[in-house]
């Protein structure tokens, strides 16, 4: 008893465990860290947001006119500055990632002396990514499915999307708990962690099969055949009208400038 004991566990190779934990956490955070969690409804109709985003990306990618591109930049920056700081930072992080990737792709062209063109293309890429990121930051998942169904996208697609998102979140939580359990129980050096990881994947598969069965039963019980009916009243708000007017101005500018030429 008088001898001081020092126990140092041997170094354990657990990097992959931590990496998978972080990856799952990242996906879950991206899914959960979305607007609309507080229960506040969107101020703009989601289908209008979706259509506007599609239109903006389309027009920006078709445009060869620098004036139109600058107008689109003004619109997007103007919208972006209305968000909270946290959201702006998240959006800009996505755009920065796209910028790095696009810059790497365009680098050879830049070195071969197509500087002006490359900057123009880079600007277009960034604007398209920015438009998508703004949409994603401003729209909760439930509204995305609502937007798809209002835009007459086939129900099968909407249901698949809806369930995928819900089950990524559900099963992700499950995996996370199992990974934590594995980490907690691997005191000292655990040589058999890889086997346990296989077991986790297997369990996940079994659980998802169970979930599919219960989902089907729940659908039957509630008489849900996969047809989405939207119950929300559809009065146009001033924000809707504002966004629609903005779309109209941009489209008119595109055609008036002959921006595709």
């Amino acid at each position, binding site marked *: 008893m008088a001898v001081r004991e020092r126990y140092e566990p041997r170094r354990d190779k657990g990097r992959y465990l931590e990496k998978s934990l972080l990856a799952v956490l990242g996906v879950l955070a991206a899914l959960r860290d979305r607007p609309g969690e507080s229960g506040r409804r969107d101020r703009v109709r989601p289908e209008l947001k979706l259509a506007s985003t599609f239109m903006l990306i389309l027009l920006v990618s078709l445009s060869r006119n620098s004036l139109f591109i600058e107008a689109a930049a*003004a619109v997007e*920056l*103007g919208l972006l500055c209305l968000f909270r700081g946290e959201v702006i930072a998240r959006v*800009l992080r996505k755009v920065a990632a796209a910028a790095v990737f696009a810059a790497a792709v365009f680098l050879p062209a830049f070195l071969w002396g197509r500087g002006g063109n490359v900057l123009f293309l880079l600007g277009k890429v960034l604007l398209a990514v920015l438009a998508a990121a703004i949409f994603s930051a401003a729209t909760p998942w439930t509204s995305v499915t609502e937007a798809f169904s209002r835009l007459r996208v086939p129900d099968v697609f909407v249901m698949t999307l809806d369930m995928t998102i819900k089950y990524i979140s559900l099963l992700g939580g499950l995996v996370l708990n199992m990974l934590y359990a594995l980490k907690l129980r691997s005191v000292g050096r655990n040589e058999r962690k890889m086997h346990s990881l296989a077991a986790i994947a297997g369990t996940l598969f079994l659980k998802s099969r169970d979930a599919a069965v219960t989902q089907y039963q729940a659908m039957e019980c509630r008489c849900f055949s996969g047809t989405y009916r939207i119950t929300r009243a559809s009065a146009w708000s001033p924000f809707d009208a504002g966004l629609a007017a903005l779309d109209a101005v941009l489209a008119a500018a595109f055609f008036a400038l002959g921006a595709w030429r």
Partner: protein
Amino acid sequence: MHIPDNYLGPATCAVMALAAAPALIVSAKKVAHRLPKEKIPLLGIGAAFSFLIMMFNVPVPGGTTAHAVGGTLLAALLGPYAACLSISTALLIQALMFGDGGILAFGANTFNMAVVIPFVGYFIYRFVKDRVSSKRGEYAGLAIAAYVAINAAALCAAIEFGLQPLLAKDAAGVPLYCPYPLAVSIPAMLIPHLAVAGLVEAAFTVAIFAFVERTSPGTVYAGSSVKLKPLYVLLAGLVLASPLGLLAAGTAWGEWGADEIKAAVNGGSALGFTPAGMAQGLRFDAPLRDYAVKGAPEIVGYALSAIIGVAAVIIAFKLLALLKKDRGGPSRAEA
């Protein structure tokens, strides 16, 4: 009042940057410690205001133009330290995105517009406010403060211009940078500001201060709620009105490009040469140079520039506010 690159010699630019730096550092520290979190977005809105107000050019005697800055307004609303940060951010975005004011001359411009105006204006405003009891007296004090402060800044800019022929000459005695001596630069800068720009600054300051006080009292008085909506509405109004700034033709005194200065008329005669330091100096190509978009009518370019500039300033400050939250957040405090 935006001094372009190559008007001041490198030595002057360095000295002015050294003069402005301590003010900026102290301001950043004071704002980080004292300004409540809910007021940080106001910094961005303030910078956006200043950015827009500077786009309203008014014609002044002598065929050039001048503009208000809004420095005293921001100092009265947010305090001089926050105003200093707001205006320097607006100046930085103007220099980098719109080529308004030089990159090398950023220190000088910051000193003139972001240090002199807010601090001089705030001092005079407090001095008068503490001695009068009526609202009208306070507004009068604010107007006087705005008028004196912008003229003090114009005087600083004029002295910086006027010293150049003494500081940098070639072997033949021809000035390398700004060619006008103090005897020319001081009246050329001060007369327009005393006669027009100072009055415009005073009018802008009082009108907007009264509006903000009425619609968003929390901005002015501690304890009331800070309402951002009326301020955003005011900003949008200014953006829409910004092309009015184009009505004044001509370039502001001391803001000519290297291609313009040869023909610039001063005291009845054109200069007739381009100083060597200007012809060969730094040339930075800002993406939206002179608030214009290639191939677009001037009005459209000006309005688009206004939107992009305002949005950029607000986004920058919202991101800055985030940094402050992170620093003061519980996670770090516990650790």
